């Protein structure tokens, strides 16, 4: 097996899935009509509803859904061998992933631009909206835990990384200043900031610079290093969460985009060149290592939550319904935008799997890189690919880590921003202090640091996937109910919903009672495992309530009662 063959298999999946299955569903079930006015046109208010072209929206949707998830999941799941992960990525996208993303645009579009919060309230039950908010809050907290451990503990503490990350952030601030205050041309701004960002990344790899951080890390010791760098991570997130979005988050994301996009493009070109030279083979990387992986668990259900994004991700439904669905100009654009972006994310997940398999060159190399810091496998793989376009691995590897760090950071400070707004909205009445943005952000960061410092990374990752997949089954349930209500075929969304629901509950039960509980009995990471059990139990209870309400709603719509549950 090699890289190009894997990409060809993924391409065949994409071709059949998009051009046959998806187009067929689009034509026969939703029957888009470009003569109908979409909410973006009908309610154009310049705030929430504004029409945009399909190509622009495709770019927007892809950027909104694709980040560390499709990169991290396949790397972790490669522990079962390359085959299970590859099959789940392709088949998951084929039968479930695009279905959810596409329908999450078209259903809100046909429901006056309602978000999934409003739709769950109307179609399932009033409390379903509350449950969705619980899923969202826990999901975001777990993201902070999972990404925070990787970024704060593994990457930032790498001596070659901090200068590069700091330069990218400073260049982001400069980009904001140049655009909004100095009114400079965007191309000039981009060239200056991106070039300086790359120079900063390179300076960070110089022995004279990195040795200073090595000295700092040695002085801090193992524990001190962990706390110091995770607090630096928290400070960056705090600034990103409380400063105006134009000053920090938006321009930093912009500069980061170029650093990431150029790395990905270089990596893919390097992979193709390497493959044509006869390399980029899987070597002794096994197709299948066994049904159970130590530290993770059994293939079913754990693989299906380990790779969430890249195959199916509930978060996409929220982004699609609240953002993209309100900008669709023509009904027929929903498939290329929603479905197309999901299929592209599948390709990204496959490339990530290739960095773990073809790029590392074998099983032992993968295990060694994985033990050095989970997503670090991606940095090693990317550096190997980039070495075939003439970029030395001494630069490529730290670049890969800076790439992943800024990718994670740009997400985390937006997550903290959301968490502070969520806590102000949900608890601001009872605890007025939470309405203060600084207090809200600090509370969110303290909770995150507790998860980062105490948690077991693989457990947090599985729970993060579990919360995400629960949102996916909720989204699929809403879509199914909408289809039933409107007298359309619904089996193609109902069965994926049932599969995701059962699989996710099984994964949460396994993680809580077969992994975290025995770990507590053995006295390993007691606080982190107690938190994991509590989170898993809350998610399971919410899922059971949701399942009950969902069944009631299904029966209601099957009997032909079309009145919404909410009063």
């Amino acid at each position, binding site marked *: 097996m090699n890289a190009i063959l894997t990409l060809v298999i993924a391409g065949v999946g994409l071709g059949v899935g998009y051009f046959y299955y998806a187009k067929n569903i689009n034509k026969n079930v939703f029957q888009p009509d470009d003569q109908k006015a979409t909410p973006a046109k009908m309610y154009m208010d310049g705030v929430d509803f504004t029409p945009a072209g399909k190509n622009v929206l495709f770019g927007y949707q892809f950027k909104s859904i694709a980040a560390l998830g499709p990169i991290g999941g396949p790397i972790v799941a490669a522990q079962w061998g390359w085959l299970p992960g590859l099959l789940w990525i392709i088949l998951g996208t084929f039968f479930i992933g695009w279905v959810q993303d596409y329908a999450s645009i078209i259903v809100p579009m046909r429901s006056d631009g309602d978000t999934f919060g409003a739709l769950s309230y109307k179609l399932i039950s009033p409390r379903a909206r509350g449950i969705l908010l619980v899923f969202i809050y826990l999901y975001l907290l777990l993201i902070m835990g999972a990404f925070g451990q990787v970024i704060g503990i593994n990457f930032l503490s790498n001596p070659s990384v901090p200068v590069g990350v700091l330069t990218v952030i400073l260049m982001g601030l400069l980009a904001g200043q140049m655009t909004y205050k100095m009114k400079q041309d965007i191309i000039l701004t981009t060239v200056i900031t991106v070039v300086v960002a790359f120079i900063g990344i390179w300076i960070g790899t110089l022995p004279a610079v990195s040795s200073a951080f090595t000295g700092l890390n040695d002085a801090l010791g193992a524990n001190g290093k962990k706390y110091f760098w995770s607090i630096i991570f928290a400070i960056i997130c705090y600034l990103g969460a409380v400063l105006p979005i134009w000053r920090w988050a938006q321009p930093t994301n912009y500069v980061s985009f170029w650093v990431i996009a150029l790395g990905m493009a270089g990596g893919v070109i390097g992979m193709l060149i390497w493959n044509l030279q006869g390399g980029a083979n899987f070597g002794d990387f096994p197709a299948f290592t066994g049904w159970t992986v130590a530290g993770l668990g059994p293939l079913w259900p754990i693989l299906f939550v380990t790779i969430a994004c890249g195959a199916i991700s509930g978060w996409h439904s929220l982004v699609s*319904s609240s953002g993209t669905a309100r900008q669709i100009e023509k009904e027929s654009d929903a498939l290329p935008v929603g479905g197309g972006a999901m299929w592209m994310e599948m390709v990204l997940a496959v490339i990530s799997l290739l960095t773990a398999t073809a790029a590392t060159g074998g099983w032992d190399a993968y295990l060694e890189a994985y033990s050095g810091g989970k997503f670090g496998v991606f940095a090693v793989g990317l550096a190997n690919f980039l070495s075939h376009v003439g970029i030395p691995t001494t630069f490529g590897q730290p670049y890969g880590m800076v790439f992943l760090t800024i990718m994670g950071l740009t997400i985390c400070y937006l997550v903290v921003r959301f968490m502070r707004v969520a806590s102000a909205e949900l608890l601001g009445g009872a605890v007025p202090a939470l309405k203060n943005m600084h207090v809200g952000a600090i509370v969110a960061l303290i909770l995150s640091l507790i998860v980062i410092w105490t948690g077991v990374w693989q457990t947090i990752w599985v729970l993060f996937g579990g919360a995400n997949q629960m949102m996916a089954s909720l989204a699929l349930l809403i879509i199914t109910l909408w289809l039933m209500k409107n007298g359309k075929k619904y089996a193609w969304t109902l069965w994926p919903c049932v599969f995701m629901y059962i699989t996710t509950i099984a994964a949460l039960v396994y993680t809580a009672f077969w992994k975290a509980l025995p770990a507590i009995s053995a006295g390993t990471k007691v606080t982190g495992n107690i938190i994991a059990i509590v989170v898993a139990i809350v998610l399971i209870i919410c899922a059971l309530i949701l399942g009950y309400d969902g069944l009631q709603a299904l029966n209601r719509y099957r009997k032909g009662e079309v009145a919404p549950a909410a009063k």
Partner: protein
Amino acid sequence: MQTHARERIKEKIHHAAHVAGQILYGMTVFDWKRGLRQQRGEIERLFILITFGDLVGLPILPPYYTLRLLPYTVPAINRWKRSLLRERDLTDLAELIEGVD
């Protein structure tokens, strides 16, 4: 015949470049432009609220000279009312977090 084929290829290349440009725009500065548009929309919404808020039951006494704005406001009234009174929840903010997955 050959010229025609060359023209078609040229046209296709132009089209592909245009599509690629639009996708890149969607991934990069579209968000900035959208953010600015949203800010302007919110200020406009607020302006109409303080001048014609009585239309939605806000107890304000519109000054006489707001009548001069009426011709400009009338076409936007329905859109403004819907935008202002639309029920919102936290899921409306989900799009704030891009690239979470």
